[in-house]
């Protein structure tokens, strides 16, 4: 049961095409799991549709229609999407992972926590984090926003519990120590605006090597 959802700002930013890839991946992954947020996203899309309908139009080239028909002649219809296969990872995330999920390259960030960085740009980065059951992610603050989707297991921080499908939105004022629940490792997908800042000495030393 998903209890923590995306907020309107993220949904509107995604709908209007304004989210960096790293955040868009977390949003698209959550929406793949959550019909409530999918419906909210699609209502923001409806706003976009209404605006486009009402906004001033721009005349197209005289031969535009003919050019489109010739484009159509050169390509094929898009297939109906195949039903999803069973995986702990939602479809948009699987695009970033090796076909064989056992081949994901996990690297230690210390304290038993491992990560796999998926994309990393100046703007934002996104990674999988794997926290052993019962262990804490080292205390960290953020320069900007941090968006986390729980994929497997669960974690608690000082405020709340986050289980599979849940979203946690943290900003630079959030200093938290998520602890994975006992029972199974917790796997999260986490996007950040800027490099994560770990506050304990060990991961801080490791940061330059790991590109966190």
């Amino acid at each position, binding site marked *: 049961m998903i209890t923590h959802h995306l907020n*309107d*700002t993220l949904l*509107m*930013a995604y*709908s*209007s*095409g*304004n989210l960096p*890839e790293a955040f*868009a*991946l977390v949003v*698209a*992954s959550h929406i*793949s799991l959550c*019909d409530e947020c*999918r*419906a*909210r*996203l*699609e*209502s*923001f*899309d*409806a*706003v*976009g*549709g*209404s*605006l*486009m*309908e*009402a*906004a*001033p*139009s*721009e005349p*197209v080239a005289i031969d*535009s*229609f003919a*050019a*489109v*028909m010739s*484009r*159509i002649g050169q*390509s*094929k*219809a*898009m297939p*109906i*999407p195949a*039903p*999803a296969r069973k995986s702990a990872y*939602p*479809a*948009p*995330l699987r*695009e970033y992972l090796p076909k064989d999920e056992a081949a994901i390259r996990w690297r230690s960030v210390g304290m038993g926590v491992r990560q796999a960085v998926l*994309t990393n*740009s100046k703007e934002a980065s996104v990674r999988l984090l794997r926290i052993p059951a019962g262990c804490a992610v080292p205390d960290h603050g953020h320069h900007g*926003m941090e968006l986390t989707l729980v994929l497997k297991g669960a974690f608690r921080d000082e405020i709340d519990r986050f289980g599979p499908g849940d979203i946690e939105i943290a900003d630079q004022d959030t200093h938290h120590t998520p602890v994975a629940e006992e029972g199974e490792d917790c796997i999260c997908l986490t996007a950040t605006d800027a490099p994560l800042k770990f506050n304990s000495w060990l991961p801080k030393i490791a940061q330059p090597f790991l590109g966190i």
Partner: protein
Amino acid sequence: MLTEPRQPDLAGGTPSRSTYIGAREASARKSKAVSVTSEKTAEAIWIDCVKRIDRERDESAFRLLFDHFAPRVKGFLMRSGVDAALAEECTQEVMATLWHKAHLFDPSRASVATWVFTIARNRKIDTLRKQRRPEPEDLPWGPEAEPEPVEIVSFQQESEKLGEALAQLPAKQRELIERAYYGDLSHSEIADATGLPLGTIKSRIRLALERLRHTMK
């Protein structure tokens, strides 16, 4: 009753909406729309066109959609900062995608304008941002999940109401929302543009999703 013949009302007849898009353009659109037919709403016509493209590869239906939507897509792209030549090329790609994706359009979840908008937005991201563009897992729908006509009509009504509500927003808020969709706002500014009356249209979409999930089982 829903059976009452209605004038297609592409621009919306209310004075506030006319000022929104320019009164002259509104009346021009209206007269053009009336020549299409006077018995169906504009939205019903567009839905029918998409169906005819899907089932019969009907070029004349596609032409109707093209004449209405291609200039809007181009206008949208140009206001988003795409130059005229590139906007023309992208518009052609968007329209070709529309033809190829006709079988994926679900009129109980989106208006044709919304569907076209999402295709245009995706093209815009590909063009301007040159990043990968993660998309939610598609929910397949086929003949077995076909929505009931009443669901489609209810959705059209919600969609129309949303258009009216947007047109009636205070000018400042409307402008903020437009700027968000044209890519002019930062993340914190977008937060100020939210708070729209989306509850009822969301509930409609939610129902359509539930029906889809049910048929997929």
